[in-house]
C-alpha cells in the first residue's frame, strides 16, 4: 500500500504544488520566487519519478479502488519525465521572460502545474473518460495560459480560437468514447483491447467509428491538416513560454495517449486507418510546409513547421498500422528529438523577447551572429536539428521515421517526407542565413550567464550529442541512449 502511495507521489507532488502556488498567487512573493517554488515541486516530482522508474511491481495504481483506470508502466513514466522536464525547462528558460513582462502573475505557475498534472494523467490514463478529463484539465489550463497576456489583442484572440476549436474537437473525443462504450460496454482500455482482439475488423464498425472520432481530436491537437488552422495563430498569439510549452510538451502529451490507444488497444484494427492517415499525412506535410514557407515571423514559421513535424510523426503512425516494427520507437525518438529542438528554438526566441521585447521577424535576425555569436550558433544548431541535418538529433529522428515508412512499404510517404524535409531546409536555413549573412550595426553583446542561457546551451549540446553521441561518455545518453529509452518505453506498452 505504501508503495502505491509512492507511485502516486510524483503526481501528487505536482497537484500539491499547483494548489500551493494557487494559494500563494496573491501573496507578496515575487515571480522569481514563485517560479522557484514551482520548479522545486517539479524537481521533487522528477526526482521521485527517476527513483521510481523501472521497478513496477504492480500494473495499476490502487487497483482495488481505481480499478484499471490508472496504469503504471515505463511508457507513462518516461512520458511523465518528459513532461516534467519540459515544464521545468519552460519555467527555467523563461525566468527572464517572466521578470521582463509585467502581465505574469502567480496563477500562471498554478496553471502550468495543473496542465502538467493533466498531461501526466493523460499518459497514465487507462480509461477513456479519465483520459478525456485529463485532456480537458491540460487543455483548459493551456487555454487560460495562451490568453495570459490579456491586454494584448493577439493573445486574447489566440485564446479565443483555441478555446472554440479545442472544445469543438474535444466533444468528438467524448462522442468517440460514447460510441466505444456503446460497442464494448465499457470504457476501460483493458476491456476494449479484449473486445477488439475478440472481434474481427468487419463486425465492430461502431468501435472503429468511435476510435476515429477520438483520432480526430488527437489529429486536431497535434495540428494535422485539415485540423491545423489554429496552430499558427495560437502559437503566434501565445506568450513565448506558452508557445514553447505547447510546441514541446503538450504535443508530446497528446502522443502519449495516441500511442497507447493505437499501439495497444486498437492495434488489430490499425490497418483500417492506413489510407485515412496517409491522406492526412500528405496533406499535413504539404500544408505545414506551405504555411511555414512564407511566414515573416519566426514564431509563425516554427508553428507552421511544427505541423510538418506532426506530419512526420503521422508517417510513422500509419506505418504502425502497416506492421512496422521500428515505427513505434521511431515516434518516441522523434518526439524526444523534436521536444529538445523546438524547446531550444523557442527558448532562444523567448530569451530575445525578454531582452528586447519584440516578436522576431526574419529581418530582425540580420546581424544576429555578430551581436550574439553564441546565441546564433545555438539557434543554428536547433534549426539544423529541426531541418534534419545530420549530426543532430533531428536527423536521427527523421531517419527512423523514414526507415519505418520504408519498412511498411510506404515509399510514397517516405519520399514525400524527404521532399518536405528538403523544403524545410529552405525556411530553417533562411534564418541561419539572416543571422550570419548580414553585418550588424551594433557591437557584440555580452553573453549573459544565467539559468536560461545555461539551459539553452545544454540543450544545444544535447541536440548535437544526441545526433553523434556514442557510448563514449557513459551515463550521458547519446543517440543510442535515447533510442534505448524509446525502445524500452515502447516495449513496456503492453
Amino acid at each position, binding site marked *: 500500500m505504501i508503495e502505491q502511495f509512492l507511485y502516486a507521489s510524483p503526481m501528487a507532488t505536482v497537484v500539491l504544488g499547483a494548489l500551493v502556488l494557487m494559494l500563494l498567487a496573491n501573496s507578496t512573493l515575487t515571480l522569481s520566487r514563485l517560479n522557484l517554488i514551482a520548479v522545486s515541486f517539479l524537481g521533487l516530482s522528477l526526482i521521485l519519478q527517476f527513483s521510481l522508474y523501472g521497478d513496477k511491481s504492480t500494473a495499476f495504481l490502487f487497483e482495488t479502488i481505481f480499478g484499471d483506470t490508472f496504469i503504471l508502466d515505463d511508457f507513462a513514466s518516461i512520458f511523465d519525465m518528459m513532461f516534467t522536464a519540459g515544464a521545468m525547462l519552460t519555467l527555467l528558460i523563461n525566468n527572464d521572460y517572466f521578470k521582463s513582462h*509585467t502581465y505574469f502573475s502567480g496563477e500562471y505557475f498554478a496553471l502550468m502545474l*495543473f496542465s502538467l498534472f493533466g498531461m501526466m494523467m493523460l499518459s497514465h490514463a487507462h*480509461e477513456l473518460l*479519465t483520459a478525456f478529463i485529463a485532456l*480537458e484539465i491540460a487543455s483548459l489550463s493551456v487555454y487560460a495560459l495562451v490568453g495570459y497576456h490579456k*491586454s494584448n489583442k493577439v*493573445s486574447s484572440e489566440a485564446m479565443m480560437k483555441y478555446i472554440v476549436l479545442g472544445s469543438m474537437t474535444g466533444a468528438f473525443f467524448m*462522442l468517440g468514447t460514447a460510441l466505444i462504450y456503446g460497442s464494448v460496454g465499457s470504457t476501460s482500455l483493458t476491456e476494449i483491447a479484449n473486445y477488439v482482439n475478440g472481434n474481427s475488423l468487419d463486425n465492430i464498425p461502431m468501435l472503429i467509428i468511435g476510435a476515429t472520432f477520438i483520432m480526430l481530436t488527437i489529429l486536431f491537437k497535434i495540428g494535422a491538416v485539415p485540423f491545423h488552422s489554429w496552430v499558427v495563430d495560437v502559437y503566434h498569439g501565445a506568450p513565448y513560454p506558452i508557445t514553447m510549452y505547447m510546441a514541446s510538451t503538450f504535443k508530446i502529451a497528446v502522443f502519449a495517449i495516441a500511442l497507447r490507444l493505437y499501439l495497444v488497444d486498437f492495434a488489430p484494427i490499425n490497418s483500417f486507418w492506413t489510407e485515412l492517415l496517409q491522406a492526412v499525412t500528405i496533406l499535413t506535410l504539404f500544408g505545414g510546409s506551405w504555411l511555414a514557407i512564407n511566414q515573416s515571423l519566426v514564431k509563425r514559421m516554427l508553428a507552421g513547421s511544427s505541423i510538418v513535424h506532426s506530419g512526420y510523426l503521422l508517417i510513422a503512425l500509419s506505418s504502425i498500422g502497416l506492421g512496422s516494427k521500428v515505427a513505434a520507437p521511431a515516434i518516441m525518438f522523434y518526439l524526444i528529438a523534436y521536444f529538445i529542438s523546438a524547446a531550444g528554438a523557442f527558448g532562444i526566441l523567448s530569451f530575445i523577447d525578454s531582452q528586447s521585447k519584440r516578436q522576431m521577424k526574419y529581418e530582425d535576425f540580420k546581424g544576429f551572429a555578430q551581436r550574439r555569436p553564441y546565441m546564433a550558433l545555438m539557434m543554428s544548431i536547433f534549426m539544423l536539428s529541426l531541418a534534419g541535418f545530420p549530426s543532430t538529433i533531428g536527423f536521427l529522428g527523421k531517419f527512423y521515421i523514414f526507415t519505418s515508412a520504408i519498412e511498411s512499404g510506404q515509399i510514397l510517404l517516405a519520399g514525400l517526407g524527404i521532399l518536405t524535409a528538403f523544403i524545410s531546409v529552405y525556411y530553417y536555413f533562411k534564418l541561419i542565413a539572416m543571422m550570419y549573412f548580414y553585418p550588424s550595426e551594433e557591437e557584440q553583446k555580452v553573453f549573459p550567464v544565467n539559468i536560461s542561457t545555461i539551459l539553452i546551451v545544454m540543450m544545444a549540446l544535447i541536440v548535437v550529442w544526441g545526433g553523434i553521441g556514442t557510448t563514449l561518455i557513459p551515463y550521458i545518453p547519446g543517440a543510442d541512449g535515447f533510442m534505448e529509452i524509446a525502445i524500452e518505453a515502447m516495449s513496456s506498452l503492453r
Partner: protein
Amino acid sequence: MLEISIFSILALFMIGGSIAMISNKQTVFAAFGFLVAMIALAGLFAMLNSQFLAIAQILVSVGAVVVLSMLTILTVNAQSKSLPQEPNKTKWIILTSILVAPFTILLYKTLTTLPDHFSTMETINTKVLGKEMFSHWVLPFEILSILLLSAMVGAIVIARKSKKKEDNTTQTNSRERSRP
C-alpha cells in the same frame, strides 16, 4: 404510446430550442432556446430512468450553467446594434448542414446497429449511481474536481481585469526598441 408522445414533445422542444439557438440573431433568444433544450434534456434523462441525472442536469446545466450564461449575457448587455452582423447566416447554415449530413448519417446508422430495445433495467437512482461512481469511477471523479479547480483558476485569470496596459509588446513591433 404515452412515452412516445412525451418523447416526441421533449424531442420537439429540444430540437426546436437548439434550432432557435443557432438561428436567432438575438443572443437572449438564443439563450432561451438553449434553456428550453436543456430542460427538455433533463426530461429525456428522466425518461431514461436516470432520475439523478435529470436532477443533476436541472441543477447544473440549467440551474448553474445556463443561468450563468444568462447573467453573462446580461452583463455583456450586447445591444442589437453591437451584435454581430450576419447577413449570410442562412447560407452558412445550409452549407454546414450539408457538410454535417454525412456525419449525422454515419452517427445515426452506427448507433442503430445496437439492439433496438431498452433493457429492463432498474431505475438509476442516486444510490445506484453513487455506488457505481465510488466503486469504479473514483479516479475520474477525483480528477474532475481538479478539472473544475483548474477551470476556476483559469476563468479567474481570464476574466480578471488586466492590471496594466503598458506591456503591449507582443503586438506592436516598434522599431525604436533595441535590437536583440
